[in-house]
């Protein structure tokens, strides 16, 4: 992974000092609430319902075991012994004290971590597919490009006070597990006929109040121009994005209002001034960034292992876990393992200090000391030897990290909701739990198969409910918490926005409603059809009839 050099370290140290000074001036009464609010948000610090929340950046979801150990000790020393993984591959602490945050940031900086631009109306943490660099048949490893974008976006002086937040995703895999199309800018790595690397650039995607799939602004942007082109898009948005209405301030609204062709013309007009200039990327810089993401020392292994095959026949639970949580790797004899953080009774994405240290141990023993956070709020060990799978699985059981439910109905993506977040209209964690309790038999979940269920406690859509096969949105109805259901959303290269089913439901009705939706699917599905395919074949009307049918 990327290793900080003297420049990166210096800037980070200066940032820690800057924020320490800002906090001191605020506590001394020299900064107003409003002034400090914007500054602390640019440093990931929210004031929540119960306490401040600090969002720590995990650039493109990649962590070393040493960094995970530090997150564990911080959660013990400054928090209540746990952390939360967000849908932007970041880590959140829910209980730090404001006065202690500068110290906490200094501890993070010691392991090259920070909370820079994890909130506020600036360019946020760049995300990517958690299988980057290890997925079979990958087009191009996205990580070096993410790092290039991380540096460009960090303390970019022109784009720190945008109309609204700004999110960029980069994807070089064929499947796209990065929700690339619902980002303000989505970058698909591709190669032209000459085999040269470039990007298909999408703009104006996003979730929130007005969900949109991004539109293609550039079919093939040669890699050299990545930063000057991003500068041009950002500049048009910074100057022309709406600032009069927070709900219409995202770039998607501007792109829609202008039309993609007019927006493109404006971007090209800005770009002509910078194109080919000093921001043009060099072979040297790309080679430097790529040098941090070379393959680890893979062993030459057979893709099969007799001992493992034997256990697979004997231990059914292990077999299930391998089927659900283990994916193919580009190197024979290796697998990509995802540890589920979706145990019933635990808030989705929450992880204890002890579990973090355990995962760091696992990574050191089995996966070249690296860990990845997925936007589905799970953890990936990207380079595990096939022959080590059973040992790894056994170890995970003792720390309750062996749940075999990846991609199943109870692998719920869920924001912190009204239990923590001051923006939320409704709670989301108890909804997740009530569904997990209703669907608690593995056989049944297995029978239902691949399905995504996303819950957001408000319109801001941190739980990505618009792109869930089943999306649940908390709404406020005259001071009471209600839940609107939408169906048919999908992420990936064929991303789709979910359609609203109908009037919303009370909290205690939700498990029953999900049950009806799933029942209709099970009754109607043809052979191995997945939920999303059956939904698309039947259409939303059939589901409406089923769910809202009056009891006889």
């Amino acid at each position: 992974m990327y290793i900080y050099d003297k420049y990166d370290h210096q800037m980070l140290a200066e940032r820690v000092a800057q924020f320490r000074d800002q906090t001191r001036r605020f506590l001394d009464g020299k900064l107003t609430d409003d002034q400090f609010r914007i500054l602390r948000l640019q440093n990931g610090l929210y004031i929540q319902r119960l306490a401040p929340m600090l969002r720590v950046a995990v650039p493109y979801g990649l962590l070393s075991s040493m960094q995970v150990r530090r997150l564990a000790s911080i959660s013990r020393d400054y928090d209540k012994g746990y952390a939360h993984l967000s849908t932007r591959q970041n880590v959140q602490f829910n209980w730090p004290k404001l006065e202690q945050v500068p110290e906490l940031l200094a501890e993070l900086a010691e392991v090259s971590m920070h909370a820079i631009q994890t909130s506020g109306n600036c360019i946020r943490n760049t995300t990517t597919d958690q299988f980057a660099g290890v997925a079979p048949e990958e087009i191009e490893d996205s990580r070096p490009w993410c790092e290039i974008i991380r540096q460009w976006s960090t303390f970019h002086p022109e784009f720190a006070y945008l109309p609204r937040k700004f999110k960029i995703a980069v994807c070089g895999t064929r499947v796209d597990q990065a929700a690339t199309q619902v980002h303000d800018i989505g970058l698909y790595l591709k190669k032209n006929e000459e085999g040269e690397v470039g990007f298909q650039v999408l703009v104006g995607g996003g979730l929130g109040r007005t969900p949109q799939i991004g539109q293609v602004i550039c079919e093939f942007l040669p890699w050299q121009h990545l930063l000057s082109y991003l500068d041009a898009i950002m500049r048009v948005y910074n100057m022309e994005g709406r600032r009069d209405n927070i709900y219409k301030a995202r770039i998607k609204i501007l792109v829609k209002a202008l039309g993609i062709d007019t927006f493109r013309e404006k971007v090209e007009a800005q770009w002509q001034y910078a194109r080919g200039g000093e921001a043009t990327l060099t072979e040297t810089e790309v080679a430097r960034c790529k040098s941090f993401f070379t393959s680890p020392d893979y062993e030459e292994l057979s893709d099969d292992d007799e001992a493992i095959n034997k256990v697979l026949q004997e231990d059914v639970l292990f077999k299930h876990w391998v089927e659900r949580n283990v994916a193919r790797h580009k190197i024979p004899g290796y697998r990509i393992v995802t540890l589920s953080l979706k145990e019933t009774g635990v808030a989705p994405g929450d992880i204890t200090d002890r579990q973090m240290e355990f995962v760091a141990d696992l990574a050191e023993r089995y996966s070249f000391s690296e860990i990845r956070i997925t936007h589905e709020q799970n953890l990936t060990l990207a380079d595990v030897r096939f022959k080590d799978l059973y040992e790894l699985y056994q170890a995970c059981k003792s720390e309750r990290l062996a749940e075999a439910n990846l991609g199943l109905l109870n692998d719920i993506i869920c924001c912190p909701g009204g239990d923590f977040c001051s923006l939320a209209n409704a709670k989301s964690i108890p909804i997740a739990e009530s569904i997990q309790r209703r669907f608690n038999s593995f056989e049944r979940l297995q029978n239902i198969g691949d399905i995504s269920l996303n819950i957001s406690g408000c319109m801001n859509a941190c739980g990505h409910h618009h792109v869930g096969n089943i999306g649940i949105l908390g709404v406020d109805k005259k001071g009471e918490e209600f839940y609107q259901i939408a169906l048919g959303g999908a992420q990936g290269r064929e991303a789709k926005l979910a359609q609203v089913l109908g009037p919303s439901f009370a909290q205690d009705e939700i498990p029953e409603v999900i049950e009806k939706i799933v029942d209709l699917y099970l009754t109607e599905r043809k052979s191995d059809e997945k939920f999303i395919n059956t939904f698309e074949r039947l259409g939303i009307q059939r589901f409406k009839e089923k769910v809202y049918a009056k009891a006889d």
Partner: protein
Amino acid sequence: MPKLIRDGQLVKDYWTLVEVDTDLATVLSSQADHLLLPANFWLQHKSELAGVNAKIGLWFDSSQNPAEFDETFEKFPLIALAFPQFKDGRAYSYAAIVRKQLNYSGEIRAIGDVLRDQLTYMLRCGFNSFLLADDADVETCLNGFHDFSENYQSTVSNPTPLFRRRR
């Protein structure tokens, strides 16, 4: 009195800022020898203003893109860009455009809600003077320019990005 920092120093401000709704007669009878006029005011009255002895500078509100202003800037010694609120970041882009695309070499001044913690970003986007509130602590503000000793990007103040300078 507001405090002015220009090119890294506290200096006297000779300019008189004329508000948007000022009438022409008031401006013409003004004794000021440096008039900072709303850009549209100047556009509207430039023939009447031709005989004024005072030096003229223009200021732009954040809703007005200077690039769309049909006049060469070089004859004005001062272009001021307003921050109605510090979180309105449009003028960062305007300053960069005025410097890099319109090649303006005169003074670009940040006016309005100009605070210590934004100064370094303004400087990097091409501003070289900063009009601070009456009660601003000048020393604290001057320190604001030195929050960071290095930056990643290609910007107005340093067009060569770090990746071309790393050793």
